[in-house]
């Protein structure tokens, strides 16, 4: 309890139950901390590093690495991957080429890393472990269990809400723009306006989009169609002193036309249009 908190840097001074401590853990802690600093530039990292140094005596490694990782500030988007899923090598196919120090990182993640590494190596492994976790996460969240966990988070709006005014605080889902790592940061997908937005919290803008993948929100809604919000088809109409703006009104007419055609098509194919809004008048 106290160990974990110490690692997150929230309660730095509660070093009440440190039986052994030991230099080894101390250095390990330091390397973790350094790594944290390198990954999260700015204030958070430095806070954590100072806090970590303060209660370096705690033997944090008895805590699960994953648990600790998830408790870090900025990692709220991640869900917990089941241990069995990680331990099943089939699920990790191909990842060994993506991640340096693959085996060690995996060991660290599963808390089975022997602790006789110098600080620098450990920092490196730590980084690899985070990356590996992200990549496994991308695979895990599109399994049925992973989806269920993401649905829970979605229901609690842990990924934030749509910034669009007419979406009226619709909860969003994380989504990547690419499945290849290091290309884009994570975005959020609003199922109501079917568009992609930057995450509301800036600290989430540092998460790699490939840790969630391009598929997640759409597969999730496919699997849980009852979560698809009703699309009311509202649209903001610019007005000057109450009068519509000519050019915009023209565009809106075109939009209406496109929309009407789509609805016609859907009717033709007999698609259930309950989810859709009633036909709109301009």
């Amino acid at each position, binding site marked *: 309890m106290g160990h974990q908190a110490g690692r997150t840097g929230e309660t730095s001074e509660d070093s009440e139950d440190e039986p052994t401590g030991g230099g080894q853990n101390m250095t390990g802690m330091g390397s973790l901390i350094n790594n944290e600093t390198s990954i999260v530039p700015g204030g958070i990292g430095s806070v954590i590093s100072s806090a970590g140094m303060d209660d370096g005596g705690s033997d944090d490694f008895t805590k699960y690495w994953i648990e600790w990782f998830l408790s870090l500030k900025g990692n709220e988007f991640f869900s917990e991957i089941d241990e069995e899923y990680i331990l099943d090598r089939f699920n990790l196919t191909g990842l060994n080429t993506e991640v340096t120090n693959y085996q060690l990182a995996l060991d660290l993640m599963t808390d089975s890393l022997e602790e006789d590494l110098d600080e620098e190596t450990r920092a490196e492994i730590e980084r690899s472990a985070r990356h590996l976790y992200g990549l496994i996460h991308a695979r895990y969240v599109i399994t049925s269990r992973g989806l269920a966990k993401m649905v829970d988070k979605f229901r609690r709006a842990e990924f934030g809400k749509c910034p669009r005014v007419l979406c009226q605080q619709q909860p969003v889902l994380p989504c990547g723009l690419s499945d290849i790592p290091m290309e884009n940061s994570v975005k959020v997908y609003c199922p109501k306006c*079917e568009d*992609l937005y930057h995450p509301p919290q800036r600290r989430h803008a540092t998460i790699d989009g490939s840790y969630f993948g391009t598929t997640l929100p759409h597969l999730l809604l496919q699997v849980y169609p009852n979560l698809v919000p009703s699309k009311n088809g509202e649209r903001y109409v610019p007005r000057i002193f109450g009068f519509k703006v000519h050019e915009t009104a023209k565009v809106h007419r075109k939009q209406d036309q496109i929309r009407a055609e789509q609805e016609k098509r859907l009717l033709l194919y007999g698609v259930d249009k309950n989810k859709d809004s009633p036909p709109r008048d301009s």
Partner: protein
Amino acid sequence: MPRPAHTEEELRPEDENVTEQEEDEEEERRNGEGDAEQDDQDEFEEEDVEEEEELQDDDEDFSTDTYETSGNSNSSSDVSWINWFCTLSGNEYFLEVPEDFIEDDFNLCGLNAIVPHYNEALDTILDLDLDEGSGDATDQRPPSPPLPEALGRSVSLSPTPHPTNVSSTRRSRPTPTEIDQSASLLYSLVHARYLLTKGGLASMAERFAAGDFGTCPRVMCRGQLVVPMGLYDMPKLDNLRYFCPRCGDLYSPRDKRYQKVDGAAFGPTFPHLLFLTYPELVPAQSIILPESARKASPALQLPSDSLRPGVTPSSSSTTLYGVGVHTVQGSDSDSGPGRGPEQRRDGPQSSIGGGANVAAGSVEPDMQMYTPKVFGFRLSELARTGPRMGWLRERGDDLEVAHAESAEVNGSRALTGGQRTHTRKVVGGSARDEE
């Protein structure tokens, strides 16, 4: 108010009782009293009991009290209230409204009905009433005598804000907090009006181009700069929103301090008037003012608007209107990470997607719209959860021909239908469904 009451009566006979009362009140104020015993009948504000008591205790300290509670604005007299107000947290978007704009009663027409303690609020904003009691302040009020004779027009149009309000609120002394709130409210409303003037639009255009208001949260807008606005003209209905000129949509501010700002301080008209006044500020792939429209009307055309594909017209300098606006392109670097390169990326992509001779406006729609994909495959339109909102971000450039003015209602259905099947394939979501 050194406003001769007889002129009021002449001009607005229906306000007789009001002006009479005003006369009384005016008398009171001239004598330096007229305050402090009745309780506040105002329903707008919650009153702070302690402050009320304190106020009654030492009445002569009233004015200083006001300004102390309002954040030491006038401890140093060189900082005006307006200046101070605009530096408050959350008020960074406000312009400093020139004092002569506020002093013109015509510009304040009707606001006295909305703002409680209108007179005090106005005095606060204009930094009158500083050291002496309210009685002296009326005499000393320097430029306020744009007397009704001088401004006959304004008087005849407006029910002369001061007098009517005097009658309603003068009889009880509002607490400093109330005055402060009223001053903020009044300033917000005046601000919304000022924004629509030439000077206001010019200043806002400058600030918009400098990226003062942040960027659009929508990914496909690629860091497009936004402007603040409100959904309603009336205060306290909704907070501040952002209008993105690229997707033409409204977004909530994600910064907490802006979530408390009243949207009425900017108003629903302002952004659209701004972009009609300065069309060069509208980005290239904008939904609100298509490229074709800009080209069509020569009045809106820019001198440097050569409009090669991939070159955003927003990059052209906007000195045309004498604004001295920074080029939008130049402000990319500080507006948001990656906006510049990404927008430049639109150019080549558009030529890849639509052929070499695409008009600047018709960038490949995929760049504008997000296409949901599962394992790399587009969702079918026929799926229950398939895409339904594609039209929202659709600019319908390809429908332009079909919509040639008069024929747009009836005759063009078939033609547009054919065109749509072509474009659907590009737009995504339903290429397969067409077959």
